[in-house]
């Protein structure tokens, strides 16, 4: 079993970096089994992102989301199926993650089926900054706890499954 834990976002666009910062914090503060590999600093989208998944059996992706449906700082557990995909690509920059996933599944035989997304609701980010907004910063510890708990749960399931 090899799990990839990915912190996704842009480290210079404020709250967009929340996924990166949470995964970095977990890497530096907590211990995780060797089968969890951490890729803490990924600023990619579309095919480039999905290609990183190759070779893992499970991916846990920690990213910012802006749905407007949840209070800021809420950690939402999502799966690819939760998203509606229009399957229409406007251009390279706007390649949809789920189209990329489907495409990569056709192209490669080592893309994991098991992909969990932990989305963290954030504020609108349109300004360059390497700091989180105060509102998200205040909730940072809670966010880390939520994400870490989820990871522990996943690890436990993996260990139990393997023992069985």
């Amino acid at each position: 079993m090899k799990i990839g834990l990915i912190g996704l976002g842009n480290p210079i666009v404020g709250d967009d970096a929340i996924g990166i910062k949470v995964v970095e914090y977990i890497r530096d503060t907590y211990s995780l089994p060797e089968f969890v590999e951490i890729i803490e600093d990924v600023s990619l989208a579309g095919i480039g992102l999905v290609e990183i998944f190759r070779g893992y059996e499970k991916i846990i992706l920690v990213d910012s989301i802006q749905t407007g449906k949840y209070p800021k700082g809420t950690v939402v557990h999502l799966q690819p199926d939760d998203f509606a995909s229009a399957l229409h690509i406007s251009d390279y920059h706007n390649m949809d993650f789920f189209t990329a996933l489907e495409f990569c599944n056709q192209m490669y035989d080592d893309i994991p089926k098991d992909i969990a997304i932990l989305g963290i609701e954030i504020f609108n980010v349109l300004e360059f900054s390497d700091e989180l907004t105060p509102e998200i910063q205040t909730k940072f510890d809670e966010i880390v706890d939520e994400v870490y708990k989820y990871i522990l749960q996943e690890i436990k399931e993996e260990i139990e499954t393997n023992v069985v």
Partner: protein
Amino acid sequence: MSGKVVTIDPVTRLEGLAKITVVLNDEGNVKDAYFQVVELRGFERFVQGRPIEEVLRITPRICGVCPIPHHLAPAKAADQIYGIDPPKTAKLLREILALGHNIHSHILHFYAFALPDFVLGEKTKPGTHNILGIYQAFPEVAKEAIKIRGFAQKIQAMVGAKATHPVTVIPGGISKGITQEQAEDILKMSIETIEFGKLGLKVFDDLVVKNDKLMSLIDSDAYKMESYYMSVVGPDNELDFYQHDTVKIVNSKGKEVAKYHAKEYLDYLSEHVEPWSYLKFPYLKKIGWKGFVAEPDNGLYRVNSLARLNVVDKIKTPLAQEAMENMYKILGGKPSHHTLGFNWARLVEILYCGERMKEIAENPDVFSDKYRTPVTKSMITGEGVGVIEAPRGTLYHHYKTNKEGRVTDANIIVATTNNNAAICLSVKQAAQEMIQRGQYNDDGLNKIEMAFRAYDPCLACATHSLPGQMPLQVEIYDQNKKLIRILKRKF
């Protein structure tokens, strides 16, 4: 009938970073069209006070799609700030990064976005009008495209240490060299890239050039615009992505109207501002701004693949030169004003990048250990302007620093900004053809999108890509800007 506003919202992100708005007049014909981009703000303030060498590591994050140009252009500025000319090996390795990135970017743009527009057409099954459709229709070509794109990625990782966020380029050179074995590896991959470049042009010839309907689409007025063209050129006015700092501009007849060192760019470019757009509209200062019209006395210019080929006198590699000549023969001469011709020019450039990569890989200088000239604070000149040809066109990074090398002032003009006015005009032209007397359909809307897609525009780059993509949305407003109808494209 009252005037209407039609908005095509093609963006993936929930907040919407770009959209197309088409304004109809009382007769239902197109009065105006806008391509609107929300730009990330505050870059100048963000880099202020930071050491210039740190800026080189920050700027690749500006864009999750084009990090390498944003590593190389500020590096050239940083060299000037330290008053240093990097050793030959460093220049070759940096050029490999630029070429690898162009191959990587052009392949994805052409095979995932341009080719489906050409060959899948409106009759394809819903949900297949994209790269998945190409994969199903032409599996061998798609597999080869993925393989060569993988090579380009590998080469970028070899030289840039990380394929995605390059870190090795530093003021005065590059922080690590490559081995002879790695150079041989690059050589092998470049040979395959050349073969793939030839295949791409053959595919284009078979599927597009030999198809009268598609050629007449390319040749239609909706997709033609006479403009000025800008590109970096080498000393013999040859195609060059990285090596030189000379920018050349030609007019719509192909005549040179300006040639300058990157440092002088502000003498040649001005920026027009519109209230409806966050993104500015650069234009040629000496010609002037006359609005969104394609006229010889309007200083609107274009960059990107076809603009580069329109500007250069030659390509110094034989196969790409031949492919370029053939393209102009079929398009009816040089310069070509065919907006969809940007896609064809990308294929010519993939071939060039493969050929040039091979030349570099065969040069023993590329694996020499003289890849860095040390720099010290005493050398600081305080200003530098780096210019390169990114896949989407000319990219300027301009920095001023204090004596400590800390940034006091910064200005970036990205390729899409250079093309901003032209994109708006191309969208308007296509809209005028596709929307008449208030009548339009999904195919017409897609053809409007094709116009802006041809430029491969680079939008604001916050990389959070969730929750997925918004369906294409058309908003219709009455003349008082009141929303009266929302149309969603069904897939």
